[in-house]
């Protein structure tokens, strides 16, 4: 079996895991100003992702490290080439992560609204830029013969990539709003259902345009099929949400994101980073990968440990399956949160 192809799939799986999981964290963060009418609402929302945002973000670390281990050339080209874009993502993730922890330590509303702002920006920036980054990967960028990116940040901000960014932004936003409706109760739950309907329409339009553009420009039979499936699933999620079936809406949304990312990976195959200036400079699964020995070591470890990870993470989600209610939030005067 061709292990580099397997690892193309595993890297895809890890990024799918990251986008599906941290995607709704981003959505919850971005929706704070839309759904959080008061401090209790905002605390309810943050507590829906409180126990899990960190493990969700860890999927990025594992995806990045696996990229490094399995495709060092891809990792090196991508990370040095998208330097400033990744810097922005890093700064945003730092701001978001510390804000979850810091905001509850002081009772003053100015303190809290400052960190709320950081959560909103810290969620929106990565939600946008991951789409920009992946759209550029699929579209291809200028690479020299040593596979080094020769463009600038502004070359990355082309219309197609910006549409990709808008797609992930809206997908994650709606994903997060649906998650809020799934994990809360009462008025907040109803309002998030209504918001998910409105943002769902915009998401369908933008995501469909992006997937259409992707496949018109770079499509292959498999990526067309997957993109079509993603569109159907997204509409299914919209309908489920419209009919107040939160669990169905959330599940379909998660699968939509997974299938949409799969469609991008299918469009990318057999390249991992096409060179837009000269196909000879493209990074492919074959020329970017590690040696069969390294991939064998990684495959066995992943085969043994990833299922274990999935089991204990699944169990964590099960432990925190109960809805977070306003009644569970103590009075704002309490500053004794641990």
């Amino acid at each position: 079996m061709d292990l580099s192809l397997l690892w193309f799939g595993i890297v895809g799986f890890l990024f799918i895991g990251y986008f599906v999981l941290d995607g709704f964290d981003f959505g919850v963060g971005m929706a704070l100003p839309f759904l959080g009418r008061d401090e209790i609402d905002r605390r309810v929302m943050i507590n829906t992702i409180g126990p899990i945002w960190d493990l969700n973000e860890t999927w990025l670390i594992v995806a990045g490290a696996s990229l490094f281990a399995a495709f060092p050339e891809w990792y090196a080209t991508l990370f040095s080439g998208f330097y400033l874009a990744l810097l922005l993502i890093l700064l945003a993730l730092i701001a978001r992560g510390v804000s979850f922890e810091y905001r509850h330590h002081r009772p003053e509303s100015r303190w809290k609204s400052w960190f709320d702002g950081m959560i909103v920006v810290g969620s929106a920036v990565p939600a946008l830029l991951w789409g920009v980054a992946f759209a550029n990967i699929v579209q291809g960028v200028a690479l020299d013969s040593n596979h080094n990116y020769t463009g600038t940040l502004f070359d990355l901000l082309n219309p197609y990539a910006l549409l990709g960014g808008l797609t992930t932004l809206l997908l994650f936003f709606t994903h997060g709003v649906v998650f809020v409706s799934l994990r809360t109760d009462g008025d907040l739950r109803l309002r998030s259902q209504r918001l998910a309907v409105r943002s769902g329409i915009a998401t369908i339009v933008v995501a469909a345009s992006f997937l259409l553009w992707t496949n018109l420009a770079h499509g292959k039979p498999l990526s067309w099929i997957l993109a079509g499936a993603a569109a159907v699933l997204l509409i299914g999620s919209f309908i489920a949400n419209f009919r107040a079936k939160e669990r169905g809406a959330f599940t379909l949304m998660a699968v939509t994101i997974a299938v949409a990312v799969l469609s991008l990976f299918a469009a990318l195959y057999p390249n991992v980073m096409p060179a837009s200036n000269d196909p000879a400079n493209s990074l492919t699964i074959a020329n970017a990968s590690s040696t069969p020995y390294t991939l064998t070591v990684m495959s066995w470890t992943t085969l043994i440990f990833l299922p274990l990870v999935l089991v204990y993470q699944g169990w964590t989600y099960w432990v925190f399956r109960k809805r977070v209610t306003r009644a569970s939030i103590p009075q704002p005067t309490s500053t004794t949160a641990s």
Partner: protein
Amino acid sequence: MNDLLSPLVLSQWQFGLTTIYHFLFVPITIGMATTTAVFQTAWVRTSKAKYLQLTHFFGKLFLINFAMGVVTGIVQEFQFGMNWSTYSRFVGDVFGAPLALEGLLAFFLEATFIGLWIFGWDKLPRGLHLATIWLTAAGTILSAYFIIAANAFMQHPVGFELNKVRGRAELTDIWAVLSNKVALAAFPHTIVASFMVSAALVICVAAWHLARNQHLDTMRPAIKFGMWTMIGAGILTVLTGDQLGLAMVSTQPMKMAAAEALYKTSSGADASFSIFTLGTPDGVNELFSIRIPYLLSFLSTHTLNGTVEGINDLQAEYTSLYGPGNYAPVIWVTYWAFRWMIGLGLLSVIISIVGLWLIRGGRMPKQRWVWRVAVWAFPLPLAAMIVGWIFTEMGRQPWIVFSLLKTKDGVSPNITGLDVLISIVAFTLIYGALAVVEFRLIKRAAQKGPDDVVPLDDTSGRPSDAVTVY
């Protein structure tokens, strides 16, 4: 563009600064996870309220610190590709594997179980909840092992062969990489030193309250625990450091020579260790020094009449092996970093020994300054660890991977000085601002004391608002 604004120099500064900053949180996270687990175990086994109070109290300090460790850690992983892409292409086949293993085996473990621990007080049975903090602690320690194994490859590359055609190092033996003798020595050294850091934090906080004669029932056991941990971990740090020194001499003799600023190969009594030197460390203008004969020989070979290679001989040897160039690190940095590491570490242990004697049998010193020393001694072991890593990494220069790739050849060729200037300024600003917030929050939480953390009439042990922590 001058040298100072070159992508290479700026990238080196950025990696150094962000790594040191990240490392402020790493030993505290490792040490405090275990400390919290120990207190919680004491509570589960004895059901004594004071241990639950200590668990919540130190657990809170641990958590304020934890988030910073997580978010600054992502920067570290990204920087290899962002600033050091040529390095990443060269070592990725070998170096990537321990990083991926770290993520899969360690980071997932700690990130998942920390969430269960914070939010699971009222959702999990006592024993299972106790297991979550131990698994978190295990994750932090395991992650240290993998990242040190990766670092050890840069100090002493093993388990690979060079592919001349691809121009990269390729993994041939993962066990050799994971059982690198530098890693096997550096890992326990780092872990026990981390326990010195967490012990210093416990001592600092407990002493602050004891000086004010408050929370005696919790803070007296805490300070004793901290001081005994400091002494035990201190002794282990010396022993493991000795082993690391031996590994260093056999793999990177230049680093040991640079630690002593030893220019001429010496043996026996001449292989002395200077505690203090006044003058220039290039050995030309030595005004005054305190020297212990034989000690450098003993540190390097465990014999009194061993021979320790000097910088000049090593320079000649490396020039013939690797071609012309300067193969010595910056000597004044390695010389003083090595001494400060040992000195600050020993001072921390001495303070704890004296402190234990002062509080023996329930005594409470009346003098304020005694307590102040205990409070202000907090940064000593942390500073010792940081200068220790500065020694380790600066002592490796000019290599990024010893004997294979020089640092100057590892930088990304396509990033500009402006790119790195932007990122270094951005990191400095956000890290600086967060340091202020972080310090104030920890100080505030520490000074509030344990009683306010949790109402103790609740036998389930959950804090008053366990479900909605944030």
